[in-house]
């Protein structure tokens, strides 16, 4: 087995395991992270989203080998940031969390959106988060939450 090295939430990780394993399984089973969730296993729902070199990626269709040498951030790392706290306040205040299983992925998508577009319009938010499915909220409150975070987190993104 080759050794795969990458950075996970700011810390170096070195794994001797099959590089074709799904990265989501490695995160959940090998590294015991429960933030990324499996909603579909086919890259359609975004519940497993993580940031790789700052770009949102669905970890359920990503082989482990592809993260070699790259910087991975999951919700477990992102939750330590100031930006996370702004998003957390906004999601809670707008009531954007119902069953919650899409939310870690939705937060990652929100970060990815705001990092590239700190002042999004409603349409920008809807398009930016359209790769993340939620069956509970009807999305209205999630859009408002991202809007609130963009306003309150001035200068952070």
């Amino acid at each position, binding site marked *: 087995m080759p050794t795969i090295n990458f950075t996970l939430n700011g810390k170096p990780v070195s794994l001797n395991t099959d590089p074709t394993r799904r990265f989501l399984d490695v995160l959940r089973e090998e590294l015991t992270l429960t933030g990324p969730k499996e909603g579909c296993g086919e890259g359609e729902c975004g519940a497993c989203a993580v940031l790789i070199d700052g770009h949102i990626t669905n970890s359920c269709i990503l082989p482990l080998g592809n993260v070699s040498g790259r910087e991975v951030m*999951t919700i477990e790392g992102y939750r330590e940031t100031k930006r996370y706290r702004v998003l957390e306040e906004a999601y809670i205040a707008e009531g954007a969390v119902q*069953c919650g299983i899409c939310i870690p992925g939705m937060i990652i998508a929100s970060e990815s959106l705001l990092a590239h577009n700190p002042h999004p319009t409603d349409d920008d938010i809807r398009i930016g988060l359209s790769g993340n499915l939620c*069956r509970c909220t009807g999305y209205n409150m999630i859009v408002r939450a991202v809007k609130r975070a963009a306003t309150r987190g001035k200068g952070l993104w």
Partner: protein
Amino acid sequence: MKTVNQKHQSVDGKGIMLGRPAYTDDLADPSSLIIKVLRSPHAFARIKSIDTKKAEKLPGVELVLTHHDVPRVSFTRAGQGYPEPSPHDKFVLDEYVRYVGDEVAVVAAIDESVAEAALDLIDVDYEVIDPVLDFEEAIDHQSVVHPEEGIHEMFPIGFEPKRNIAASYAMDFGDLDNAFKASDVVVEETFHTQAQAHVMMEPHAVNARLDFQDRLLIISATQTPFHVRRILSQTLDIPIEKIRVIKPRVGGGFGGKQALHGEMFAALVTMKTGKPSKLVYTRQEVFESTYTRHPMTLKVKLGATKDGRLNVIDWHVLSNTGAYGEHALTVFMVAGSKVMPLYNKVDAGRFHGEVVYTNTTPAGAYRGYGAIQGNFALESAIDMLCVKLGMDPIAFRQKNMMREGETSPIFEIMGEGTAGTAMTMETCKLDYCLTRGLELIDWNNKYPRTTTEDGKIRSVGMALAMQGSGIPYIDMGAATIKLNDAGFYNLTVGATEIGQGSDTVLSQIAAEALGVPLNKVIVYSSDTDLTPFDTGAYASSTTYVSGNAVYKAAMKMREMLLDEAAVVFGVEGDDIDFDGATFKNKADGKTISLEQLANRITYNEDQKQLTATSSYVGTKSPPPFMAGFIDIAVDKDTGEIDILDYVSVVDCGVPINPKLAQGQVEGGIVQGLGMACFEEVKRGKNGALISHDLLNYKIPTNVDIKKLTTEFAESHEASGPFGAKSVGEIGIDTPPAALANALYNALGIRLTSLPFTAEKIIRALHDKEGEKTT
């Protein structure tokens, strides 16, 4: 009120957002055997022989189960109270397979790849049988979906399996013939509703282990943990006291997790191997092998006088329950019982029909539970009637709809599987909902149609709806409140949080009644060992039924506290003022805080544990009501619809948490819009699913929704906890009819078959143009 009717943040939102372990698969034992299920490639077949030897020899395989290895006890997976109104027509595994995706055999192995390899090594010899795929052809079809012995109904539900009938029902009141004779205008139409998939974002998941007392611990993503415990015990012959079911955080249900899924297999594997096991459905399995909404054909006939009085509602409904009869009768009945009373001034009515078996994915409980199908048919037909009468559909509804203080004979005639319960509407703010909705959507300036700058047709449509609040005399919820030292409380409830916010809402009810801030109530729900009973999260019951139990328990706790304070002061309970924080002796003004009292009875004097348990069963089911309005722009060249706004004005009594209530309504609206616009379970000619993933089964995304406008009517239901009624299902009911009516207002086409895809709209427009030219 300090805590109720406040937009408190949910008690669990933060921890979930952080990604902490909370859901079923987060909590599986890491050493769990992986369970995989061999599923039928045929829509209907008998297993002539099955050979598992090669699979069993594969290194890493621990167990292979076929129908030869499991108890032959018929049961229903429906997840309802006992005796169930659903037929006992399912076996753990059977020699017949009845739809593509039905269970053939079960493998448990050390990992997923071994388990999957083992599935390929099982040799099955099938005798393929001509399947029943078209539910209109099911009754007396040459193929009988359930030819086997040993299946039965629990009480009369019209079960005739030899005719492919899972259930049937008929009711009528008044003189139908006379009512039609007295009508100047009659409208008759047939409506079709499709199978809809739940698509909760967490797939069905379960894991099992034996604990240190050698008891079976099941952790399941379920809406009905107490029913799961009972059904496992009854079917697998495990003493019920040996089973503990824990429902952790659940990633959405919408009815799709009311029925059992993998619990039977996980229980069997762990009991037989002694090892922990887990079964997580793939998304394809969720689509193919769980449940859908019941597809229906609804033939509706209405009669009215020319002054706009609705005289009679007559309908026949045919419903498709698929391969097994989970919720067959009850969903069917709700299509009438939670729709017809909207128009309660009729002289006569009839509702009858059959629920049939076919060789398709079983239908089951699904938010709306028949009401969305019935609402689409009746609220479409009402607008058609208004066209024929030449009457404004709003004025017609105002004249004929249910109002506060009124009743309907339907309530007494139709229950869920049995007779119903008479009741008068103590709260019904439909009139306000309608009037306010007209303002919010700007109806007068948009009805029936305008043209947009880019040449699209802009139009509005609407529908009324009602639902219920639990099932009277059947649904029971219970709650226990425990006082701790330092004066905070534990609230334990059987009620099942599945993401709808019940832990938060029930905590708010307790905190309000106890007079403490929300953070002084620590809630724990749905553990069959540790919490009191509850029938589960279904039938829009939790806020009303379980909430009433919480309220009663809290009031009992207050009485107990007053008794303790009376001892301290040496007076009677009546002589004390208590605001939740401080007890005050009215006579001398002396006080003792709750904290001091709690510490005193825990550590110092007359030591004891205070707990208060109460339960609640409804004696009626007060319906929430709503008016739903859609604002659309249609491109008449492409048939594409833009949904510009959806206005909901809802009477759910007092919303215990207006933010969560809004979330329930809006989530329901968007799920209903999915059904109205494009969601459809599709099969190939052989019965195999085409829509087996999220590419082929589209649900609304963020870009499909432009705007949702949601308001609540001022309403106080005296029988509900702090005035509340239910709000979990009502939101889903109106979108299909509202959109159908808007499309008629826009284009003059009447679509009667859901969903309203661009193709159907274009085709209807072409048909209409054709009519004009011929």
